[in-house]
């Protein structure tokens, strides 16, 4: 059998990194364990390099069970990047509020591995295991702040609800398997094209939508996310918001466009309605929030709504839009959450009201927050605008109402983003002492800011990369 291990270099490297972080953590004295963060970050950087170098090394393993195409590689790079940013941004937070360095860092790496596997998954089993690896890692991470009951409560909620959604997803997968007689996505597509066993597919479809909708936090399957986002340690929240969501979108596209593409007529309107609901509910409920993490959680529900728009179109342009948007969304979200984490280190509060005068205490952080929030709102010349342009142009023909709704709601979202801006910029701080972030967090912030700006002003290169990647998605 031909099994080209070189295609798995990224996965293997991550695996090795995760294990070595874990083992090192067990071996070194606890005083030097805080260095593990840097170790993990550097290691991830190395993996990132490997992934980028291996970009063009694409192929299919095990008769389509494992797909290493441009699409997967794009997402892999994205996950690794976000992991790097999250780890860089979380050094101090972890030191102060979590402890357990090696478990934390290795679990983050393993979660990343889970996402990477998801991106490449070509069959249901790989997909399921990748997803579960990620989910279980996140359950642990969410509950990691054991002293804080909120963190545990969030862990509990996430565990139980994620398990239920896993069950639903699995049930859906099993029915699709039953309807088509295969679990390899490419073959599923052929079977569906032949007609398949439609009644089962309908239920399977619904359950997959529900299960994956839960993972991406689309309304009405979103209800876990505000609570979990609020309770989880902030760096975890940010990783949950970007990594988990992006990975889920990766398999969502894989399943629905790759596998069930021929049923587009059935699920397109459904997804459109979910997208619309997500934009509406996410943005509307974000308005009265007073806790910044909770507000960002609702906002990320709305973001999921925007990204779903790309799925509705079910075209190459739509895939490209999703990829582009997911990519820029990472930087905006990580940037915002890193600020939240860093500010929490100092003022021990996530209330928006306590951000008063942030621009005077930490101008960089306030600016990054501003830029990231506005990018999420889609204000030009920030990346979010270009992303929305890509997404919404795909549904102009056929779903014009979605375009209206999406753009108007994204302007409504400016309202609550600006409330944060208002507090940060207008007020004078109660305590004028400057807030130090540490160089690693600063690096994350600067990267997030610069990339958000650059992608907004000069999105050409990324758009082209996304374009070629999206092409491989349909070529297979």
């Amino acid at each position: 059998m031909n099994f080209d291990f070189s295609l798995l270099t990224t996965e293997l490297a991550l695996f090795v990194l995760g294990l070595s972080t874990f083992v090192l953590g067990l071996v070194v004295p606890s005083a030097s364990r805080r260095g593990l963060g840097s170790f993990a970050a550097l290691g991830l950087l190395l993996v990132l390099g490997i992934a980028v170098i291996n970009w063009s090394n694409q192929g299919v393993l095990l008769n389509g069970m494992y797909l290493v195409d441009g699409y997967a590689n794009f997402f892999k790079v994205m996950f690794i990047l976000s992991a790097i940013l999250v780890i860089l941004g979380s050094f101090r937070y972890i030191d102060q509020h979590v402890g357990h360095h090696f478990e934390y860092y290795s679990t983050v790496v393993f979660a990343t591995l889970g996402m990477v596997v998801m991106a490449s998954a070509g069959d249901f089993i790989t997909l399921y295991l990748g997803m579960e690896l990620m989910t279980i890692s996140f359950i642990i991470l969410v509950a990691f702040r054991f002293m804080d009951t909120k963190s545990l409560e969030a862990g509990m909620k996430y565990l139980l609800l994620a398990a239920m959604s896993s069950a639903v997803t699995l049930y859906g997968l099993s029915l699709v398997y039953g309807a088509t007689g295969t679990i390899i996505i490419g073959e599923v597509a052929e079977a569906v094209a032949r007609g398949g066993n439609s009644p089962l597919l309908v239920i399977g479809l619904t359950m997959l939508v529900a299960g994956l909708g839960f993972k991406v936090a689309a309304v009405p399957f979103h209800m876990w996310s505000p609570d979990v986002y609020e309770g989880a340690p902030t760096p975890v929240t940010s990783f949950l918001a970007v990594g988990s969501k992006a990975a889920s979108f990766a398999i969502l596209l894989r399943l629905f466009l790759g596998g069930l593409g021929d049923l587009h007529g059935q699920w397109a309107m459904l997804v459109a309605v979910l997208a619309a609901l997500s934009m509406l509910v996410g943005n509307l409920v974000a308005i009265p929030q007073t806790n910044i993490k909770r507000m960002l959680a609702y906002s990320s529900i709305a973001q999921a709504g925007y990204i779903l728009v790309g799925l509705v179109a079910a075209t190459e342009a739509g895939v490209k839009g999703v990829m582009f948007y997911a990519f820029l969304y990472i930087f905006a979200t990580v940037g915002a959450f890193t600020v939240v984490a860093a500010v929490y280190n100092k003022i021990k509060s996530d209330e928006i009201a306590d951000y008063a005068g942030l621009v005077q205490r930490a101008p960089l952080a306030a600016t990054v927050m501003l830029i990231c929030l506005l990018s999420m709102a889609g204000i030009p010349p920030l990346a979010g605008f270009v992303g929305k342009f890509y997404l919404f142009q795909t549904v102009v023909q056929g779903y014009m109402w979605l375009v209206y709704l999406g753009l108007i709601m994204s302007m409504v979202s400016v309202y609550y983003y600006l409330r944060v801006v208002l507090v940060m910029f207008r007020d004078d701080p109660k305590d004028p002492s400057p807030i130090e972030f540490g160089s690693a967090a600063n690096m994350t912030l600067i990267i997030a800011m610069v990339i958000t700006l650059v992608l907004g002003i000069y999105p050409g290169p990324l758009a082209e990369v996304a374009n070629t990647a999206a092409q491989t998605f349909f070529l297979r």
Partner: protein
Amino acid sequence: MVQFALNHAWLVPLLPALAFVIIVFLTRPWPRVSSTVSIAAIFSSFVLASSIAYGVFTNPGFIEKPLEYSLRWFGMEGFTVKVGVLLDPTSTMMLFMVSMVAALIQIYSTGYMEGDPQYSVFFSYLSLFAASMLGLVISSNLLQMFVMWELVGLCSFLLIGFYTFKISAREAAKKAFMTTRIGDFGMLLGLLFLQIIFGTLDLTELAQRVPAFEQFGISLGLLTLIAILVFIGPIGKSGQFPLHVWLPDAMEGPTPVSALIHAATMVVAGVYLVGRTLFLFAEVPGAMEVVAFIGAFTALFAATIALTQREIKRILAYSTVSQLGYMMLALGVGSLSAGMFHLWTHAFFKALMFLGAGSVLHALHNKADVWDMGGLIKKMPITGWTFVIGGLAIAGIPPFAGFWSKDEILAVTLQYATHGHSLGYVLFFMATFTAFLTAFYMWRMIFLTFFGKEKPENHPHESPRSMTFPLIVLAGFATLGGLIGTPWANYWSKWIHFGQPHHGEPSIGLMLLSVFLGVAGIGLAYIFYYKDEEKLRVKQLAERYQTLYKISFNKYYVDELYLWFTRTVVDAGAKVLYWFDIHVVDGIIDGMAGFTKVSGRGLRYLQTGKLQTYALVFFLAVLVITVVLAFGNPTSAGILGGGK
């Protein structure tokens, strides 16, 4: 020199403009320098204007073919506007008159405004005014004229409100601007019509095109409308009824200003404009009748108000309104010569009287009520006697200037009547009666002011030479200025006429009537206000006809009407609209924003924090979606049915 002046006529307005700039930017801190600059500029203009006048009046060719040169101001496809100079006898006369009066009044002002902290500013305004007025006069284009028209309005506004410490001055300035603005609105519409229909605002081109208006596809009715619209501008500017209300209030400004702007020059701009566009009015008899009637009515109307006024400048102001009515009447009956002639003579005697009044006020420290004066001629002989000359001129006593011009107007009106316009008789009657009233109220003022008993509380003194010199010069013109237009040697109508110059035969009868009316008026005033030292008869009369007296004294309550209109209609309307804007237009927006917020707050409480509720919602959604997908959607039902 003459040739240079003709070719550089644009220098005439430009020099004062330059003076304005110099004063504003350079010499403001040095009052004397400022006034010198200003006077030098206007004097140079005057010299130039004299040369031009010499050149034009000695060359008969200019009457038929005016000297015109222009350059492109701005333009685009289908709409090009040129600015330029149009020198014909009418404008030349105006140039000469305006520059001279302006020069004299500036000289006068050096004395009158002595010591005022805003001395330099005052002169800069005067220069700006002179520039605009001269620019208006030589305009070859109606748009250019409109620009200058508004600029003189601005100067008028600034100068009326010059005494900024007086609230009344501020209010008067606003009123003046607003009222003329209403007139300008009509005029602007007229200009737009002209531009759109005839494609040009150039005076000479219009003069060629308007008579052929039918080729431009418009009816006589529309042309009449256009003419009336254009006429609304002069109604505002020249204080014709019903937009006359600002002119008496404009006397809040310094007296030289009243003399220059609100008597001699600016207010006659309306008359001048009608004169310039007479080719338009001449086409439409209906509009001419309107002009004539409004003129005559204004003349009479203002005269009746002037009978009872007490403030010296206010009396003069109503007299100005009245005299402007005369001019309009003349134009309305079709005689450019008569109108312009009266404009010319009026400029001198009215400026003279205003300056005289200024001299009086100067002496009495701004005590304005004529009933508080008396016997001033003893202490102020130059002022007094020049004023008397002015009074004789306006009353129409030969050989003073006013006699000739007023006589001419009466003559053309009568001629108009006899040529088949029955309205003309009414106009003639109004004009003659006004002539009588004019003589009466003017001399009432003169008797009360300069003759009779001296009031002990007054300590009058003659004004400085800088002020008396202009008085003397103007008195000279008021005396002799009319002689160029006597029926026996009528140079005037040879120079300035519209259509064929008409050689009205000197009508001795009319002259006698005119003189009689003037003398009667003066005589009546003599009886009431000079002979009757206690003025008992007048008081009895006022008692007996109390209603009439009150109506006249309160100016027919026109101001009150306007005030009521502004307060209760415009302002209240604005308030209502503002309420609507805040509560309805904006209310809808705020309501939408509020709804968004409330719905967000409402939806928020679905999030109960209980994880099993979340699960419940989750699976409810699954159930609903499955049901809808499986049974609700026709396409999926088809797929279900055809599940082979």
